[in-house]
């Protein structure tokens, strides 16, 4: 059997996905170096087509689309990663507690999880942001609030499988506290499905963030890919690139994350990979 590294990095889809993701993350980190000006600043004539003075043209107000794309990468990735981390953290706690304690706790928390899975999540996110008012923090809260249930389910399932194993019983007998058992014994064994589900959640979070910013519920004064599409949609007839460029960026990034996530899944569960 080949090693995890070989199985993961040897997969051409993963390599492609990682290459694009690496580029996006680098651009997001170096946004201020690559495009030092404020992306909202007017730098030239409006509707300058791509490949002229500006690589990706300018928008209806004469703002540089390339600068918007670079700073948008930062906003979109930051919100997506933070909301995923929040969802994974919260979901893991709920899943671990329900799986570990069982009985009444399990019943109550799992009904709550099901409730959050039943209600239409995107609408719920819209309602939350409309009421909390749009801001970067509230976007993270809203996206995390609608995306934790699958994490809780995955972790609960794993915890249920691990809970009755000998090494956990040994820890109980050794007198470890519940919280210590959960963190040091049980949770490390749920890591691989958690990583797979979590990495795929980043993709969903990007789609949520862009759809919300497209609707005008994004973080104000932060350039984001969804906002660029929303601002450019009225001018599609004259300036196709305003909608095309950020859309392709979202598509490629989500695609890359899905490819890497699936690659992780195949590499962590080699027996399932051939199905």
């Amino acid at each position, binding site marked *: 059997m080949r090693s995890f590294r070989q199985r993961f990095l040897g997969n051409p889809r993963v390599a492609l996905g990682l290459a694009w993701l690496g580029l996006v993350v680098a651009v997001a980190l170096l946004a201020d170096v690559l495009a030092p000006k404020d992306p909202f600043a007017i730098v030239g004539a409006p509707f300058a087509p791509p490949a002229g003075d500006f690589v990706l043209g300018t928008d209806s107000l004469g703002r540089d689309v390339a600068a918007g794309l670079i700073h948008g990468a930062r906003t979109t990735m930051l919100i997506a990663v933070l909301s995923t981390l929040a969802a994974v953290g919260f979901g893991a706690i709920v899943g671990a507690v329900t799986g570990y304690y069982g009985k009444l706790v399990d019943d109550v928390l799992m009904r709550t999880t099901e409730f959050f899975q*039943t209600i239409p999540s*995107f609408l719920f996110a819209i309602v939350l942001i*409309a009421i909390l008012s749009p801001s970067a923090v509230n976007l993270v809260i809203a996206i995390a609030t609608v995306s934790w249930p699958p994490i809780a389910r995955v972790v609960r399932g794993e915890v249920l499988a691990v809970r009755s194993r000998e090494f956990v019983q040994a820890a109980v007998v050794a007198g470890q506290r519940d919280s210590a058992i959960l963190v040091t014994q049980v949770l490390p064994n749920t890591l691989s499905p958690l990583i797979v589900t979590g990495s795929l959640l980043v993709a969903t979070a990007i789609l949520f963030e*862009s759809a919300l910013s497209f609707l005008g519920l994004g973080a104000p004064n932060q350039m984001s890919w969804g906002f660029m599409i929303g601002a450019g949609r009225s001018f599609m007839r004259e300036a196709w690139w305003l909608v095309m460029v950020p859309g392709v960026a979202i*598509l490629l990034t*989500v*695609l890359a994350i*899905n490819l890497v996530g699936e690659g992780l899944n195949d590499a962590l569960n080699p027996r399932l990979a051939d199905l």
Partner: protein
Amino acid sequence: MTGSELGRYIIRRLLQTVPVVLGVVVMNFLLLQLAPGDLATVLAGEAGGAPKEYIDQLRQRFGQDQPVLVQLFNYLRNIVFLDLGYSFRQSAPVLDLLLARLVPTLLLMGATLIVSLGIGVLTGVLAALWVRTWKDHLVSVAAIVFYATPLFWVGLMLILLFSIHLDWFPTSGMEDVVAFHEGWARVVDIAHHLVLPTITLSLFYLALYARLMRASMLEQRGLDYVTTARAKGLTDRQITTRHVFRNALLPVVTMAGVQFGGLLGGSVVVESVFAWPGLGQLAYQSLFARDFNLLLGIFFLSSCLVVTVNLVVDLVYVVLDPRIRIG
């Protein structure tokens, strides 16, 4: 399964939906409490400021001077009598506004379900039959790309191609209101307007169902009953259509039920792109009018729709699959 067993199952399943609906109502109420500024201050602000006595009077009229628990009770009681509140922006009861927008949304949902399930299942079956050929890879690549495409962007791209450049389909609306079509002409007109929004909303789910159907077909094909069927002398075609296909369809049906909430969320985006006069567009409009009564009404109705669809899917499941015990 006898009729009375099924009847009891339906009643039990109906009772299970009560906590969910109740939960949504309570959450709506809590969110309304969280909303900045109550109705009285908003109305007073719109009138360009008002004396404090007037605001207090307004609060009293809306029952907002009562303790929170009493307000919650009143809110619950109103919902039971289908009173979802009043939209002061649109000057109409929320329920009337919702009912006027329900049919266009259901039309869009129905068309999307048929297209995404129909084409998704067909593509999945074909991909499973072509497994490990270039056609199968092509389907996989297309599915994974559609799966990653933001809905609103697909909608805009379709408008760019089919409405602006080719002029085949209208860019927005549900019908040509100035044409005053009647009878079949109107049906054709609406269908014509329905094409692009349906394709937009379908692509993501089509990709999802195609991938699921392919995996499900491949899984079923390796099971023992297929060997039995082959030993009986059935042809490959008979095995695929009569046995494998039917069993493989079940997870896809479940998924379609689970995804219905997502479909409703997607319709907000799609309806606002195509100005489709449904619940999603109403939600979009109420967002910017800060019309929380209306927005929460839409959320409540959508949740009820999801619960109903889940119920129907469960019942269809029990009827379709005799192995599912309902005891």
